[in-house]
């Protein structure tokens, strides 16, 4: 959803100059004499200077080692992301499916690649890594996987501190799994929480046959009937003092947005039931895995709603705990997916040339393997907080006027906790976040 910012400078062209000067003087005097608390809790509106109006963060998660990604020691397994012509290591090649080539130039050439990024602190667990990437704070205390994070998520910062406050429709978290991941769309931090949370969807469960059986055949009401239903519901709600928002366990969309989202869900079910999601990218059904399906669902949201902030993850590579070659195979599929995601963004009016894409694993994997051998004689890898499991990459991709193109940063630069402040800087609300909440820094060297 492209946002048009009307600041004083822009407004001045619609008001006669004398009137404008007079009103500006009065407004300035009023600001000095009577500062007031904005709904966001701040005294003054944020500057609103944005670098781009959309950010998509693709968490290349599941635990990816730099050895197999940016260092390409088993060949270039990520042809959509990275430059490099190295063929796949013959030792694993028989276990790698022949995916179509990714479309377009590599993402690396369209942005800045940090080859020595770090997940520097905290256990190298998937939920810890996700929580760190989405809150901009390492999880150094006990992490309760049954509860939302203790620090505000990037979604809450974005919705609360943007000016004007943003609706939930503009913020989406698309997860490939349930478990603790649904709770990452808002935190328990006082003053933030569900009222600033993001829309969440886990497509693999929701858009399934079971989901279609239970949710795709609703009672239809005519618009006149819906008017009567809404009228009745309003009457019921007027005589009851509590609302769903007070549960604290749900985000809330605007009423008009609810209808759009329900329509989107229905359309997605209809498409899925007609077989339209079995192979949405025409790569061959045999290649589609959960990561690709999850990213394709995120693409549907991008095309439908053009959100300003969307985070999507993939975790198929975590099969590496027991099958190294399949890990490499899924790495290629995840690479294809993120490459396709970028193409979709560029083909979506309103987001093309106005979106910055972040790509980063949540953590790496160990240097030393465990004892499980796959069919190709390869030993599996866990992630237990050794130094190698803290080594990751990060890519910041965007149009040339917003992101440094074809830049590779080879030295030790950047951490997982830097992504949230950088997103905040890009979307123009960084300065409105109270000091001390985000220990990371803005990755300025990636920005044009």
């Amino acid at each position: 959803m492209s946002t048009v910012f009307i600041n004083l400078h822009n407004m001045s062209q619609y008001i006669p100059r004398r009137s404008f000067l007079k009103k500006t003087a009065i407004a300035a005097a009023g600001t000095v004499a009577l500062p007031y608390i904005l709904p966001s809790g701040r005294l003054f509106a944020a500057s609103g200077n944005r670098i781009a109006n959309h950010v998509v963060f693709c968490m290349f998660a599941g635990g990816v080692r730099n050895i197999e990604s940016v260092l390409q020691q088993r060949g270039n397994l990520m042809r959509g992301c990275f430059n490099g012509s190295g063929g796949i290591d013959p030792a694993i090649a028989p276990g790698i499916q022949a995916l179509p080539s990714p479309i377009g130039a590599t993402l690396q050439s369209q942005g800045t690649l940090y080859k020595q990024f770090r997940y520097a602190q905290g256990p190298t667990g998937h939920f810890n890594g996700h929580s760190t990437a989405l809150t901009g704070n390492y999880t150094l205390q006990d992490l309760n996987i049954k509860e939302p994070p203790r620090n505000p998520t990037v979604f809450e910062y974005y919705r609360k501190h943007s000016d004007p406050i943003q609706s939930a429709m503009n913020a989406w978290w698309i997860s490939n799994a349930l478990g603790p991941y649904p709770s990452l769309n808002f935190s328990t931090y006082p003053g933030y929480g569900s009222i600033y949370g993001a829309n969440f969807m886990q497509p693999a469960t929701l858009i399934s046959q079971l989901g279609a059986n239970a949710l795709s055949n609703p009672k239809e009401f005519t618009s006149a009937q819906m008017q009567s239903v809404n009228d009745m519901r309003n009457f019921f709600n007027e005589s009851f003092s509590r609302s769903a928002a007070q549960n604290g366990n749900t985000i809330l969309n605007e009423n008009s947005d609810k209808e759009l989202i329900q329509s989107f869900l229905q359309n997605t079910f209809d498409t899925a039931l007609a077989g339209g999601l079995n192979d949405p990218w025409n790569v061959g059904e045999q290649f589609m895995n959960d990561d690709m399906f999850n990213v394709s669902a995120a693409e549907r949201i991008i095309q439908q709603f053009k959100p300003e902030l969307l985070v999507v993850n993939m975790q198929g590579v975590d099969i590496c705990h027991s099958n190294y070659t399949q890990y490499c195979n899924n790495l290629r599929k995840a690479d294809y997916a993120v490459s396709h995601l970028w193409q979709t963004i560029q083909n979506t009016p309103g987001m093309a040339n106005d979106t910055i894409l972040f790509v980063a694993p949540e953590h790496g994997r160990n240097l030393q393997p465990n004892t499980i051998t796959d069919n190709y004689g390869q030993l599996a890898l866990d992630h237990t907080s050794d130094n190698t499991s803290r080594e990751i990459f990060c890519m910041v991709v965007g149009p040339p006027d917003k992101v440094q193109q074809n830049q590779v940063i080879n030295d030790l630069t950047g951490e997982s906790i830097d992504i949230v402040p950088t997103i905040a800087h890009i979307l123009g609300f960084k300065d409105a976040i109270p000091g001390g909440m985000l220990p990371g820094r803005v990755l300025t060297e990636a920005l044009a």
Partner: protein
Amino acid sequence: MQVLNKRFYASILLIILSFSHQGCKKETNYIYEVDDVLVTKDQSEKTVSKTMVEFISIAYADIFGSTISQNDLGILSLLYLAFGDKVIIEDVLVKNMLNSSEANLPSDAEMRSNIGLYIKNTYIKLYNREPNELESFTLSQKISDNEAMTSAMVYYAMMTSNEYRFY
């Protein structure tokens, strides 16, 4: 002294007679009964939000008139977890239940044959309380003034209202 003795024996006799009288009294059997009482909860006392499992299983029972199976509860719980806006997912869930051929609601004819009774029963079923005068009157007007109003519409509106989410 003799007078005293007479009084003494008379007293003894009276005591014996009084005890013998008590001993012959027929025992009374008390039977305590409890009248049927409708236990309801005032709106202001509804402060606890239904959990996911409570919402799904209560909604299922209210629409189908039977207990949800563990298998179905498990499936619906996963679907519920897979979407972040619970108001939306509850809305979709209720609409799908209402569209089931096994939905067991009062028919539209039943609703219109005695609107007052329908409203009272529906409030008790869905809100666990009787409607107050204003609620009865207003909802009755809404039903009687609108020929297109159906029982499913009333259920849908009540089951997606804020009060239905609390107990």
